């Protein structure tokens, strides 16, 4: 009776919104063009028709004010899903995010809470340039009080969105736009995926690749190629950056003795450094080689078709890194 369905990333998140909004009248959606327009990436289609303008709220182009308002609504009993059209615009919400949302529970000694999801898109690959491609999750992960989720596939995206909406703390939910049309089999009922648990995407003996978001797909491609040469790659998808499932990552590295961390966001002071430092602190004596990092270069994202792909890793860079690591 439990039939799985093929569903893409965008639809899985949308279904999660439908399910949670039906289940809890306190869940509201707030953002630019999320209402009758159905979202600029068609990611909120149908919600306005079913839930109306009291629960699906179109805001002016006033990110700081509108996000602060969502925080206030969360403190007063709502569970808002706040949508920031491009992750780059999250910069406009930083004060509200860091100084209010992340701290309210702690400052109130637990009396107040901010059950809120900030949902935003990111990613290179569409020639959108320096102000519309950035993934800013390292900042969020540097902020206690927030949770940071980066799904790599449709099933996780839907399941994690359900968990995020049910969570009593502010959760940042980063969606790579280039994954929106990627599909996978999803079990009936869209099972909830718990926040804070990594997934071992593929088991292997020779090297562990820890890949973030869309990089998981590149890592799989590289692993398939390497398998033909007898190189057995293990891939770990952390799924959540904060809290990070250190046990799964460190456990995998203790098994393979080699680690490569792959991320599509800038390397400096970012997630690859965090994961690499964690491994080196906790599994130093098991390591046969230093942890390698592959991440976006330290430059803004250029528009040009020839330049843009150079900014972030892909299957080739990952494959080359693995070959270097086991050499």
């Amino acid at each position, binding site marked *: 009776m439990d039939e799985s369905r093929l569903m893409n990333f965008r639809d899985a998140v949308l279904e999660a919104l439908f399910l949670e909004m039906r289940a809890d009248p*306190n869940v*509201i959606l707030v953002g630019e063009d999320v209402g009758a327009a159905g979202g600029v990436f068609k990611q909120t289609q149908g919600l306005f028709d079913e839930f109306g303008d*009291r*629960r699906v*709220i179109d*805001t*002016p182009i*006033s990110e*700081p*004010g*509108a*996000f*602060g*308002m*969502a*925080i*206030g*609504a*969360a*403190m*007063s*009993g*709502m569970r808002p899903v706040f949508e920031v059209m491009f992750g780059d615009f999250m910069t406009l919400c930083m*004060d*509200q995010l860091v*100084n*209010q949302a992340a*701290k*309210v*529970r*702690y*400052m*109130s*000694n*637990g*009396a*107040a*809470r901010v059950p809120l999801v900030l949902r935003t898109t990111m990613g290179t690959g569409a020639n959108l340039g320096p102000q519309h491609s950035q993934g800013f999750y390292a900042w969020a992960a540097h902020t*206690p*009080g927030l*949770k940071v989720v980066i799904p790599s596939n449709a099933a996780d995206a839907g399941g994690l969105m359900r968990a995020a909406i049910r969570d*009593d*703390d502010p959760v940042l939910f980063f969606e790579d736009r280039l994954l929106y049309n990627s599909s996978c089999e999803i079990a009936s009922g869209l099972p909830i995926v718990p926040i804070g648990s990594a997934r071992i995407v593929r088991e292997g003996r020779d090297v562990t690749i820890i890949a973030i978001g869309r990089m998981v797909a590149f890592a799989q491609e590289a692993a398939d190629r390497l398998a033909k040469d007898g190189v057995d790659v293990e891939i770990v998808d952390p799924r959540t950056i904060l809290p990070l499932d250190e046990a799964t990552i460190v456990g995998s590295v203790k098994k393979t003795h080699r680690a490569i961390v792959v991320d599509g966001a800038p390397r400096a002071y970012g997630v690859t450094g965090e994961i690499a430092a964690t491994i080196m602190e906790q599994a130093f004596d098991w390591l046969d080689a230093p942890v390698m990092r592959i991440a976006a270069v330290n430059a803004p994202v250029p528009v040009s078709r020839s330049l843009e792909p150079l900014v972030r890793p892909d299957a080739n860079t990952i494959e080359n890194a693995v070959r270097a690591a086991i050499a």
Partner: protein
Amino acid sequence: MNKALKNAGGASVDGRLLLSMHRTMLRIRHFEETIRRLAASGAVPGLVHLCAGQEATNVGIIAALEDRDFIASHHRGHGHCIAKGAPVEGLMAEILGKASGMCGGRSGSMHVIDMERGNLGTNGIVGGGIPLAAGAALAARARGSDDVCVCFFGDGALNQGLLHECMNMAAIWKLAVVFVCENNGYGEFTAIDDVTAGPSLPGRGEVFGIPSEMIDGMDVQAVYAAARKAVDYARAGHGPSFIICNTWRFGGHHVGDKQEYKDDEETRAWRLRDPLLRSAKALSAAGIVSEEAIAQMEQDAISEMAALADGVRNGSEPAAQTLLEHVYG
């Protein structure tokens, strides 16, 4: 005792209400005086911003609210907390960072949150409370409730983009928000006129079609009357209002500020307009209570606050092992 009063501004306030507002203002004044002394003796960690002089705006506005309504405050917010019903001992302990503080010593003066009484918190960020207040009103609208939310901010926040954004959204969605600017003439150490453009401050609300007025913030009856109107308007679903209360802080930006930027003559003139003198005079002139009774009320407030100081000062500090509690739920 129950007769209506008329003041010079034409606002009329029930005698019992005026008496109760006067008592709350006295408690705030002497609470702040106690904190000032504690700070001077080194008992208060960090910076503390006192509201003495601004009691009428704190009390007059909040008196027009019901218990279920919300407020969002700012860094000069002890008076708002007390007027909304916060336990003064817990508040004092919080300001001193003690274990028995309302927020367990985590927040200090600038971040006191009191959800039980609908207080979204004092706030360390200029304008930070404004969207929180609008959000509480948005939540009320989503719930189908007619709860009202007041957001207090200082004149420094008048130039924050957040205010512009939130006034706009409150106007287009008819949110039950009352925007209250406590204009004490100085944003930190800068005179408001030096940094604030435009012919009129109410004009900044009127742009959005929001009923806006500027009132004497040293007159608790006038403040109450304006708040009554704005709160009723919001509760009836008509949307936001904007009240600018002209007031004065008797102290500096924070305890220890020498206030060299203020003019002595101006300071003296404002001192004469002390909101407590004004309400005391109104109470006795109308024969609500005797002057002796008013003096006794003040003594009671002094004793109440002074009695707390030693106990709070000697209270235990929070234990280090509580450090990581409540980062997440």
